[in-house]
């Protein structure tokens, strides 16, 4: 349990210490730094016993909160704002662990397998749409990043869509290892996805 807290602190520290290089390009900003912050929040969810009450039955309230948090940080203008304004940057470091990672883990833990399956399918389709958008947008979506990097981010979304799809069907292809690797890849997969 202590180890989880330490891991979360290390992740947030890494995201903060390597802010410069991570935020220099949209690929590392969106596909490395943001997921690291989310993962930090997800790690401490069991420690806080967050979302154990009846209000979170089925994990719905938490998953919805995480969904809104993800939608918010998917807005190109939120990314621009975090780069231009330290208050937004601070908000990013607070909201991604505590309003996305934490509820995502607390919701996922109580979600019905069908709900989880729908979320995985939704994540794949959303990432594919983002991939199309970022590779085909005629203009720059972030004022702070170059068009060529925007295209690279689109390719990154596409790779991630394939990765989530592969991770989702892996337990079907390797049923013998489902108990151990399936669960681990599930947790890791959700951390990377959102």
């Amino acid at each position: 349990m202590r180890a989880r807290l330490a891991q979360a602190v290390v992740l947030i520290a890494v995201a903060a210490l390597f802010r410069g290089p991570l935020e220099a390009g949209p690929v590392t900003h969106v596909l490395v730094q943001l997921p690291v912050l989310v993962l930090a929040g997800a790690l401490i969810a069991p420690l806080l016993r967050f979302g154990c009450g009846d209000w979170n039955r089925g994990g719905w309230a938490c998953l919805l909160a995480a969904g809104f948090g993800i939608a918010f940080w998917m807005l190109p203008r939120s990314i621009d704002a975090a780069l231009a304004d330290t208050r937004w940057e601070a908000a990013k470091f607070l909201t991604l662990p505590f309003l996305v990672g934490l509820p995502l883990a607390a919701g996922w833990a109580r979600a019905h397998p069908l709900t989880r399956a729908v979320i995985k399918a939704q994540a794949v389709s959303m990432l594919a749409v983002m991939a199309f958008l970022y590779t085909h947008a005629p203009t720059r979506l972030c004022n702070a990043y170059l068009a060529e990097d925007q295209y690279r981010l689109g390719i990154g979304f596409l790779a991630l869509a394939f990765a989530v799809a592969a991770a989702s069907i892996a337990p079907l292809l390797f049923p013998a290892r489902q108990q151990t690797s399936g669960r681990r890849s599930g947790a890791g997969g959700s951390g990377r996805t959102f």
Partner: protein
Amino acid sequence: MHPLVASLAVVLTGGVVLIQATDGLAALTTERARRLAAHTDMPAVPAFTVETMTGKRLSLPPNDGRAAVVEFIYTNCPTICQAAGAEMARLRDRLTAGGFAGRVWLVSVSFDPARDTPDQMAEYGRWHGADGTVWTVARPEANDLPALLDAYGVTVIPDRTGGFVHNAALHVVSPEGRLTAILDMDDIDGAEKELKRALR
């Protein structure tokens, strides 16, 4: 709390936040947001002293009863600024023909004041036909540059070939010094329409 109530509360809160964060789902990007803000809020822009290509120091906005159309450039720009120069020339011709003579000032402001000396700016002006009467090229004081770019909502980033990339646009400033519209560089019709609104 009943789980349905909790979920509804989350959806309501999240919905309100997302609507707030996107100006009613109208602006998902910074560029769209700043254009919307200019059109509806018409923020006052602070006055800056700029040095023109002839070495004259003038106030921007002009504060002499004229409206202004401001664009941002750097003269070493091989691509978009050259196209922008051609668009500014077209806009100048359209405005002169459309009865705006003497009522509008067109300014191409350099965000590379270290390299864009008056000589360099004059060269750019000659190349694109900016003679300084209706349309001039100018640079701010190096110290003022961040505040100037911030006031107009312009983000300049280095590209990987020694140049810059920026959110190029036409910025319409009313005679009262308010930023009333931000338009695509080639939106000559829109600029004419917005100038009519600014000069009303």
